[in-house]
């Protein structure tokens, strides 16, 4: 679905070059839920912005659903196929009415007027925001805003969703709302690439990708990657609290049978540690 090979990218600022992608190689299968982790400045967002051609290609190759991102004639097809949601919900609205905001993307892509209300209805239903058609997005809570932003992208019916730290600005309730929406979309078969700083969110993924210094340094199922202290240390991430507890307990002579990724699993393991 997404094939990136040896991507390189440098930002220029006041005559200096800052390399943010340096041989970034990753492939994402159709229907997969991938979480990308890495510290500030590791290149996660730069990669995400390549996926729907927001940045010009500088080196390497990238195809999205078989289309070459370097080929300008594919631009609008790529953006229709790969929808993107950003960190700050307040920066993503173009209208003061929810349904108008959702219609904006559809009109841009030339969707027939008659079809627009149906698409909006369906997208709002998917994110659990039916009934908010006439509301103002600016007066909603953070989690609601972010779900409207996701609905705006869903209405265009993309195959792939790229979510760049969409929960970073939300309160715990908003985060739960957005994460359960993302999980539902994944279950319905959407391909999802989610960038996050919260290692707990990576537990939900099919595959975790660790990015460091502009390239992928490790990838695999959460149970493998998130329990490997060496990998985590190398990319400057802290382990989930349950993994930290597993190693701290082990150092104190309390050996659990397996390294837990959820709090429930930790408690289960601890209660039968004999």
């Amino acid at each position: 679905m997404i094939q990136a090979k040896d991507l390189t990218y440098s930002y220029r600022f006041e005559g200096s070059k800052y390399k943010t992608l340096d041989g970034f190689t990753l492939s994402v299968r159709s229907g997969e839920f991938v979480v990308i982790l890495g510290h500030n400045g590791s290149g996660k967002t730069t990669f995400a912005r390549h996926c729907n051609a927001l940045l010009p290609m500088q080196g390497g190759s990238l195809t999205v659903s078989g289309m070459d991102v370097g080929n300008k004639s594919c631009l609008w097809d790529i953006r229709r196929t790969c929808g993107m949601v950003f960190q700050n919900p307040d920066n993503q609205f173009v209208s003061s009415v929810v349904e108008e905001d959702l219609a904006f993307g559809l009109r841009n892509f030339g969707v027939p007027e008659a079809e627009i209300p149906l698409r909006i209805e369906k997208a709002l239903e998917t994110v659990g925001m039916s009934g908010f058609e006439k509301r103002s997005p600016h007066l909603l809570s953070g989690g609601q805003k972010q779900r409207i932003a996701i609905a705006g992208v869903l209405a265009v019916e993309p195959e792939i969703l790229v979510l760049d730290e969409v929960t970073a600005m939300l309160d715990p309730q908003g985060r739960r709302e957005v994460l359960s929406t993302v999980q539902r979309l994944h279950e319905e078969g959407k391909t999802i690439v989610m960038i996050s700083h919260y290692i707990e969110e990576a537990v939900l993924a099919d595959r975790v990708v660790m990015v460091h210094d502009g390239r992928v340094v490790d990838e695999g199922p959460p149970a493998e990657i998130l329990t490997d202290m060496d990998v985590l240390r190398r990319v400057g991430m802290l382990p989930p609290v349950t993994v930290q507890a597993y190693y701290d307990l082990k150092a104190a002579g309390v050996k659990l049978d397996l390294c837990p990724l959820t709090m429930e699993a930790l408690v289960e393991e601890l209660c039968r540690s004999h």
Partner: protein
Amino acid sequence: MPITLNHVSYTYAPGTAYATGALNDVSLTISDGEFVGIMGKTGCGKSTLIQLIAGLLTPTSGTVEVDGRDINSPSYDRSLLRRRVGVVFQHPEHQLFETTVERDVAFGLKHLGLSKEEKQQAVRQALEAVGFEYETVKNQSPLSFSGGEKRRFAIAGVLAVKPGILILDEPIAGLDPLGRQSFLALLDRLHEAGTTILMISHNADAIAEHAQRVVVLEQGSLLMDGEAGQVLSENTFLKEHGIGVGQAAQIAALLEAKGIAMEPGTVRYDDLLRQMIAIGRRLQQ
């Protein structure tokens, strides 16, 4: 008492059709050297509260006192407040504007009547406090750094004035895990050096590990106010009110549900680990 709020209410756009009550009869006293975590859902009045304490908003009714003086009284010298209270707003990195790091960090010192050497010394200390080497960064553009680094420069600009009271609005949102950890360690160091700290955060883990006292707001009123362990271990109550529960507190509750007695107020990782080791050893015997 450095900060006292007496029956403070605040209404946005009073007397119009858009009048919205943001704070409703809040009374609160914060003592010298406290580290207070402020929690609550989006729109509960947290940011309004800190803007009132910083004197950026005037209460619709009630009084705000800093060091025993009403900051909204006409005879009060506001420059005292500016020196005493430092505020780090959400995304402070958006407020950088100068051409060099040194000039940006020194901006707040302009009208304090300091000599050139004193200013330079204050900038050096502030940059070192947030983990930079003064000589390396002073002549660079603050805008050429990463998001996390920019945030530290912006905070250095507040610290340079050496405020006795530091107020931070969601200072760790958007920082990566190590960035969060080193930033919170900086707050601990400032706190140990005597700074009074008020930190707004949705991150219950960060508040549990660092704050001594927690204030929870709901729809403009005080919902809870107490010692951190006491407030943050009320898992069921907090969840019902849409407030985040920390991971250590959640694990402690799961263990209790298994019939294991946990110490009351287990909200910090070290306390949890100590008890889990004891549980594990007991079961292994």
